[in-house]
């Protein structure tokens, strides 16, 4: 299990990876699961009141953008007579992020309950959970959990005799980072290439099959039952103002205990780092990407002064994103790190928009030649001049996501890039880099 620690947790309470029963319906109900749904159905809570409670909680989208969830729900047309959809984005492929996998494996019913409540609040009768193709065990388990919920009368027609109908299905991806973009995800559910749509129209007016649709992240849905149970105000108080609740942080890279940690928003980064066992080998923190590979990198010294919430990380010049904290110590070559990230965006660009399709490839080639001792003196200026011509000039945010690492790596570690170009080698010797990864420790 990769949920390794928590401070005042909600989402991960009572989970047990070693047990084959802790994720099941019975255990979830024993933990207080489905109480929120039952309460709403029994009290016939007006749907707009459910949305109002979510608004009050200041729950912000856990997938990366941090958009207020209640506000998003309120965009769905109320009077619309036809089908409406609720879609869960579990296409977790942002390098550094692995929280939704664990939530779905160890607490799938929290996501199911959150989606049913969302359907009730927005008057949607059908939902899909789009699950990353690479995590097949998650897909099969979610299907099992759906079957349990349906057998217990929690899904389907006339849920618990309330007259409310809600169907929920799992859809798997098959290897495309871009499908984490919500309109690409909808195209993918429709059985097409995952290429993002122009917006507007936004999914709330033209979504899946052209019907009003709301897409939220897995962890966002999982938080909803807690908000209903404790009330929006109390949920907000567990975080900090404008940053309601707890959040799962996926900590990876050069730490002793990489894994998921649930902490209240506003927890100091230093506390999170300590929970993750501190730096591997007691080495120095060099840099950290606080919110998944698309978020700008921050030097270690800046990072150590941050608290883990949307506002603090934004103020420091990055993004909390999906809560994927990639930790890099002094053995990291920043050029090599950026080379790998820029290859990723080149590989995953869907090819629809020229600035992204051509720009990601061009950036990768420049960074790669710097890494491989072919760098040219004006390469850094070239890179910095390219990024504004990609950002904001594409249909979706992948262009921005590809440009932000380049911009921030060159900005904060310019000397290291310049050293590479001048001296045709890494500032960090290759054997030091190798030792840092720890792979050969077992044999050497």
């Amino acid at each position: 299990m990769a949920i390794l620690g928590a401070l005042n947790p909600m989402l991960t309470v009572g989970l047990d990876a070693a047990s084959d029963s802790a994720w099941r319906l019975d255990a979830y109900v024993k933990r207080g699961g489905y109480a929120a749904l039952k309460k709403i159905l029994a009290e016939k809570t007006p749907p707009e009141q459910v949305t109002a409670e979510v608004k009050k909680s200041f729950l912000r989208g856990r997938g990366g953008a941090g958009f207020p969830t209640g506000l998003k729900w309120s965009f769905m047309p109320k009077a619309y007579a036809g089908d409406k959809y609720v879609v869960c984005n579990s296409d977790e492929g942002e390098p550094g992020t692995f929280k939704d996998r664990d939530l779905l494996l160890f607490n799938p019913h929290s996501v199911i309950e959150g989606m049913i409540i969302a359907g009730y609040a927005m008057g949607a009768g059908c939902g899909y959970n789009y699950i990353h193709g690479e995590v097949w065990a998650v897909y099969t388990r979610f299907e099992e959990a759906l079957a349990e919920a349906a057998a217990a009368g929690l899904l389907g027609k006339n849920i618990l005799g309330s007259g409310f109908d809600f169907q929920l299905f799992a859809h798997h991806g098959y290897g495309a980072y871009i499908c984490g973009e919500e309109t690409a995800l909808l195209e993918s559910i429709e059985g097409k290439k995952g290429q993002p749509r122009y917006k507007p129209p936004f999914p709330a007016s033209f979504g899946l099959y052209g019907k009003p649709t709301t897409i939220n992240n897995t962890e966002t849905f999982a938080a909803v039952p807690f908000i209903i149970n404790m009330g929006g105000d109390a949920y907000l108080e567990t975080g900090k103002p404008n940053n309601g609740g707890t959040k799962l942080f996926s900590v990876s890279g050069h730490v002793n205990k990489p894994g998921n940690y649930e902490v209240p928003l506003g927890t100091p980064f230093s506390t999170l780092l300590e929970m993750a066992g501190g730096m591997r080998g007691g080495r120095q923190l060099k840099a950290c990407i606080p919110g998944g590979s698309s978020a700008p990198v921050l030097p270690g010294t800046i990072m150590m002064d941050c608290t883990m919430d949307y506002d603090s990380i934004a103020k420091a010049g990055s993004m909390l994103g999906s809560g994927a904290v990639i930790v890099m110590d002094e053995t990291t070559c920043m050029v090599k790190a950026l080379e790998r990230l820029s290859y990723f965006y080149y590989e995953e660009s869907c090819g629809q928009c020229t600035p992204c399709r051509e720009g990601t490839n061009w950036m990768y080639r420049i960074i790669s030649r710097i890494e491989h001792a072919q760098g040219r003196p004006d390469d850094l200026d070239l890179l910095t001049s390219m990024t504004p011509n990609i950002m904001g000039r594409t249909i979706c945010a992948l262009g921005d996501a590809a440009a932000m690492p380049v911009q921030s790596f060159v900005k904060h570690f310019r000397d290291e890039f310049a050293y590479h170009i001048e001296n045709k080698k890494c500032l960090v010797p290759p054997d030091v880099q190798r030792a840092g990864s720890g792979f050969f420790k077992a044999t050497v």
Partner: protein
Amino acid sequence: MLTTESQKKIDREIAKYPDGQQQSAVMAALAIAQEEQGWLSSEAIEAVANYLGMAPIAAYEVASFYTMYDLKPVGKYKLTVCTNLPCMLSGAVDAGEYLKQKLGIGYDETTADGKFTLKQGECMGACGDAPVMLLNNRRMCSSMLPEQIDKLLSELE
């Protein structure tokens, strides 16, 4: 072309979507066809398209867009190594090199006996367990240090 068993599985997928939206099942159907035949030939893609009542080119667009579909034959065991940054920081690039050496092949190559294909993959959403690799699109292998890689290879007959 598709076995009755595969058709049954595809029917179950079609039932998830509204009437007339059976194209939504194409991703699952292609995965099922690939599981049945080991890879996706043009004939297999066409069979899936025909079964779902969509243009073969539309099914081909899907098959060629998503990286887990194999449009060429692969070995009995396909190993996809994530070498993205978080995994790289924990030894994934070295893990890939170790595998190349052990199997005597590079990325996107298959051993002469048709047993192993090696691929470089992108983020699998399991960075905390790095180095990670995916076996035949289904089994996630975690914390793959030399000893674990040796053990895995010896298990695969």
